[in-house]
């Protein structure tokens, strides 16, 4: 039973991938992926109930494991995947209309991507988690390069090389940690198990563990969009198909970051909290600074959303550095809120790109008049990303700030929020320009009239509205997940 529960979220997308490989992308199979994503979400809910009622689940001799943290992560993966897959048929129909893209390949790769992320969330072993995360790089490389344009190939190349090299450094860290664990007397099968490692942290050699921690934070940080190995992120997120951008930005970054949380647990037990905290504060503040500065001068709205993801990951890294229960609960809520809001924002930006044929911010003007519905959804998603109430990012950012001051980290937390404020101003100014800005006088006159309503059916609006309502509901009350959040923030359980 436990095995079934742990295998279901990984097997469902694999079966859907098989379905796409055999049957191709047709009208009856178009929502096969959505069904698989819904199974992931359902499995995650079942796991969450099991974990909060009883105890963490183990299967296959500890290779797969679900605690409150993995159940919560899987919940976010399932929710975002359901929205992104539900938006995919609309995206592909438009691509086909322009004669591009193979639906079969898209379906297979997206489902493999989901399976790899679920494996990453449920891995009970650092080695397996590493394999799953590198597998996400491999399957998404062709999704980033889906467009076959020069820019898409450039983005795919940079993405594959930087992420593979970054994650190779994490592998070096894992190997070094394995060495320390074997010398601490752990068996081959348990020496990469984060729970066993945390329990035996006292026996790990401190100098070797320090080295391993640094490599792993740097390496998994590359995949989580943290400085200094972040250069792939804006390119990949802006070139990928909109639903894939949503998955990459909304949950892939989080799946990679949760590995850092697991590493931090081991490092804190072996070395005390100061070491990992310093590393995370440096990388978090550097990420925030890069994101804020590049947001200021941004001209492309998809890249703007990508840099906003970096801003949020930087904030999440700072929350991990604080590391108290409140900080971790806020961090996890922030991951959920950011994942959902960014999914809506990227999906809406995909519709916008199709309607306006440009990703330039200064060529999209007066959306509030010309496309009030789409503009309204995009604006609401960006308000959520800015951290305004009633959306849940308001509550989580407040939680991170409070936790930071309570942990006497006032200076770095103030610095982090000043940088976030800079990013806030940039994002708000660009979005306001797109919504309310006057049409460029040089452009053809009369374009500020409402255009014929973009042909977006209920199938297109469904995911957008559902995502926004969920983020807002999470902001008003987090009761369905409060217990799970509390347990996950405790760590270990």
């Amino acid at each position, binding site marked *: 039973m436990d095995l079934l529960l742990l295998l279901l979220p990984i097997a469902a997308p694999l079966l859907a991938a098989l379905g796409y490989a055999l049957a191709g992308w047709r009208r009856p199979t178009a929502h096969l992926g959505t069904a698989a994503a819904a199974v992931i979400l359902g499995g995650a809910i079942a796991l969450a109930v099991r974990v909060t009622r009883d105890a963490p689940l183990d299967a296959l001799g500890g*290779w797969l494991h679900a605690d409150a943290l993995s159940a919560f992560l899987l919940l976010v993966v399932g929710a975002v995947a359901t929205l992104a897959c539900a938006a995919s048929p609309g995206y592909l129909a438009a691509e086909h209309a322009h004669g591009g893209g193979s639906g079969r390949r898209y379906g297979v790769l997206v489902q493999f991507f989901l399976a790899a992320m679920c494996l990453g969330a449920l891995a009970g*072993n650092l*080695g*397996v988690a*590493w*394999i799953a995360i*590198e*597998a996400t*790089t*491999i399957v998404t*490389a*062709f999704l980033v*390069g889906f467009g*076959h*344009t*020069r*820019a898409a*190939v*450039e*983005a*795919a*190349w*940079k993405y*594959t*090389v930087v992420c*593979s*090299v970054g994650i*190779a450094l994490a*592998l*070096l860290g*894992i*190997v*070094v940690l*394995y*060495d*320390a664990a*074997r*010398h601490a007397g752990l068996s*081959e*099968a348990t*020496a*990469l198990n984060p729970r066993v490692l945390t329990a035996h942290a006292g026996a790990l*050699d401190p*100098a*070797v563990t*320090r*080295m391993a921690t640094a490599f792993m934070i740097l390496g998994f940080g590359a995949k989580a969009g943290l400085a200094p190995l972040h250069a792939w992120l*804006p*390119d990949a997120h*802006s*070139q990928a198909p909109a639903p894939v951008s949503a998955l990459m930005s909304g949950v892939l970054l989080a799946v990679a970051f949760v590995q850092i949380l697991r590493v931090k647990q081991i490092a804190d037990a072996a070395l005390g909290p100061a070491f990992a905290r310093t590393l995370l504060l440096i990388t978090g503040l550097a990420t925030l600074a890069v994101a804020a500065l*590049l947001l200021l*001068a*941004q001209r492309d709205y998809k*890249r703007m959303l990508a840099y906003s993801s970096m801003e949020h990951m930087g904030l999440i890294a700072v929350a991990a550095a604080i590391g108290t229960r409140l900080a971790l609960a806020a961090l996890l809520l922030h991951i959920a809120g950011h994942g959902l809001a960014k999914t809506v924002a990227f999906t809406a930006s995909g519709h916008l790109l199709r309607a306006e044929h440009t990703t330039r911010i200064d060529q999209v003007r007066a959306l509030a008049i010309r496309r009030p519905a789409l503009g309204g959804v995009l604006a609401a998603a960006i308000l959520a990303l800015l951290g305004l109430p009633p959306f849940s990012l308001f509550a989580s950012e407040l939680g991170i700030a409070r936790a930071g001051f309570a942990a006497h980290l006032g200076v770095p937390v103030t610095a982090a929020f000043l940088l976030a404020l800079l990013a806030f101003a940039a994002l708000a100014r660009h979005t306001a320009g797109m919504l309310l800005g006057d049409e460029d006088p040089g452009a053809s006159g009369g374009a500020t009239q409402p255009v014929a309503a973009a042909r977006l059916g209920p199938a297109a609006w469904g995911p957008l509205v559902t995502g926004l309502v969920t983020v807002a509901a999470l902001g008003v009350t987090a009761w369905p997940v409060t217990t799970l959040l509390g347990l996950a923030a405790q760590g270990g359980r």
Partner: protein
Amino acid sequence: MSNRAELLDLAAGLFLLCAVAILWRRDVRAQTAWLSGQGIALAAIAAILGAQDARPDLYGVAAGVALLRAALLPTLVRRAIAARAEDRESAPLINVGASLLAAVALVLLAYTVAQPLVRLEDTPAARALPVGLSVVLIGLLILVTRRKALSQIVGFLLLDNGITAVAFLAAAGVPLLVEFGVSFDLLLAVLVLRVLTARMRNLFGGSDLDEMRELRD
């Protein structure tokens, strides 16, 4: 015992030598030959450790390493070399002499950084461990200073060989399942990079990475 220790030192020495040779040669075809040699040296390290610890399973791992890293991966890179000569050059940003000097500095750095690992257990294998770390750093140097697509793949493979060497010398390899998964991922990553290289040639008329500047802020 001392006989095996000498053999291990020899294999590790050859492993490092191949990395330096790759840095020295500019022709990608020659680099892949040295890459094959490095794969054999790595397999030899695994086999010697198997004999030393009386672990026959390591012979199987050694055979797998030889197949993947001495035969399969270098062949994949060689097959991707274009007919035109200009694509075979690795176009270093810094000249070969300076690269070799940098390599010496990196080896010294690796020996310093690896001290905690060597101190953990004073065996011949652990004493040879900085060699693996040196190759990781040389791989990174190639990735940073060579601006051709294929040279970057070579640098990436060097980096990965170095990590595998560290795993063998430090702890006689990671668990088999993990080793298998890592190798599979590596193979797929190289295949992906090959396909992207071919697309790059179609769209940009070459594989010079500095030609790609569509995406800038």
